[in-house]
């Protein structure tokens, strides 16, 4: 899927499913690194756990797509690992991440997009992320229906996906994580991409010297991680062409 095709899909539906984003040895390494971080209880501080997680931020399977969707002023807000326990009432309910933001006409804007990279297969009853396709175009104030269960949302689609797939989602799309009724935990790497003119959740100085050195290695990483560039306004930062 080209970035243009992915953007067209995303613009129409409010999300795009990227199949086989990670495969083979790369996926195996991710699964091993994720397990180590999970055992150590460091999934929320995943950048410091393995260089592989820093590499995920500008991975070629999705960075060109995220750039096409959000813009050349792309920046990371956060990246973290997440485990949803097996057999748990862990659903999020239907919601819209950007419900609290003021000042932006959301149906025609892309302020924030989330990336979910699946570490393991997600079965039909395994805490699937679900969307209402096209809901990112709903007029602001469109009422969320008063539902009794996740499943009763009309027209929803579930991300029942294999390990290594990825999903990009507009922060204004109605979505939910269903309860996990399966016998396996759902494991996912969740990232949030925003614009360089917005605040991130990272302060570069708080990162380890090693992670800082990985970030400082390229212009694009410095922008993605919000490293200040004094000679350029953060209203004018742009990614450079890769390759």
């Amino acid at each position, binding site marked *: 899927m080209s970035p243009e095709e992915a953007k067209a899909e995303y613009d129409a539906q409010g999300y795009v499913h990227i199949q086989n984003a990670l495969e083979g040895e790369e996926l195996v390494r991710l699964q091993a690194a994720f397990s180590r971080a999970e055992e150590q209880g460091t999934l929320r501080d995943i950048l410091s756990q393995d260089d592989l997680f820093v590499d995920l931020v500008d991975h070629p399977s999705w960075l060109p797509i995220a750039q096409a969707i959000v813009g050349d002023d792309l920046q990371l807000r956060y990246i973290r690992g997440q485990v949803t326990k097996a057999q748990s009432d862990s659903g999020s309910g239907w919601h*819209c991440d950007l419900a609290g933001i003021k000042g932006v006409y959301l*149906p025609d*804007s892309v302020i924030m997009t989330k990336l979910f990279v699946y570490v393991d297969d997600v079965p039909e009853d395994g805490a699937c992320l679900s969307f209402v396709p096209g809901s990112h175009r709903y007029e602001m104030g469109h009422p969320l229906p008063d539902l009794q269960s996740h499943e009763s949302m009309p027209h929803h689609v579930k991300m029942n996906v294999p390990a290594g797939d990825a999903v990009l989602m507009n922060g204004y799309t109605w979505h939910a994580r269903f309860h996990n009724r399966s016998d396996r935990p759902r494991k996912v790497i969740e990232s949030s991409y925003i614009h360089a003119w917005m605040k991130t959740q990272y302060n570069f100085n708080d990162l380890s010297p090693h992670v800082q050195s990985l970030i400082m290695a390229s212009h694009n990483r410095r922008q993605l991680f919000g490293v200040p560039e004094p000679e350029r306004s953060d209203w004018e930062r742009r990614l450079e062409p890769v390759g």
Partner: protein
Amino acid sequence: MTEAQKIEYEAQGYLVLEGGLDSGELAEFRTAFDRVSEDDSLEDLPNGDDRFIHLALHPTFFPIVHRILSDDVQIRTLCGRVYAPGNEGMEWRREVAGLLGVAHEASTLCVQVHIHLDETPDNGTCIAVVPGSHRFKSGLQLPDLDSVEAMPHAKLLKVEAGTTILLHGNLWQAQTRNGSDVTQRCIRFEFVHCWMRQHLPELSPESIEIISESHNLSQLFGVGEDFNEVAKGYWFRTIEGYPTSTGLPERRFSELKVAGKGFVPNS
């Protein structure tokens, strides 16, 4: 903000507030401004004199800025500008043009506040605007013009000393050449939202102490443990002591924030 001001701002993309600073305030700000200017520190206005810090909450314009931008209002920049005779001004532009991803014609990311310490003399520099252009879509190209004055439908905003001008960040704006023999001075704020980056000078310990005494100044200048640069929950900052504002244009928000969990009440 009066209903008439709201209609005017929504329609034209700017407001002119005459008599914003009284003669006493004007004299004080001119003196402070000149002192900072002599130190070549007009980019460092917040540290130059605490009058400039408190000016952010001036009753002439802050309640209006708050109404326009919402409870999550914050300052991006605060600086001084001197327009000496012969100053070439600035060409036509949209201040928010570099902010990608936003339908600016229907959004409000930035409000500029220009506080004029001098009247506009004959042939002096002044702000020029195209009324209503804040609703132009981003793809609409600025015309290729020989001069600021050649812009069709442009309006030159000549002012008395003490006048404050508010501009929507998407408004087509320019600054005419100063063809007079008079120097003109202006204090400029850019107000944005809490979730946007700021571009303030590093604040001195004295400035931080002053700012920290007020919740609202702390939010505006991004000072304090709860307002540091790192954004966590930054979509929910709230100015205190003013009627709640969700910003202009007025929007509706879904009453239900979460639905369908099935075992807890919706909220």
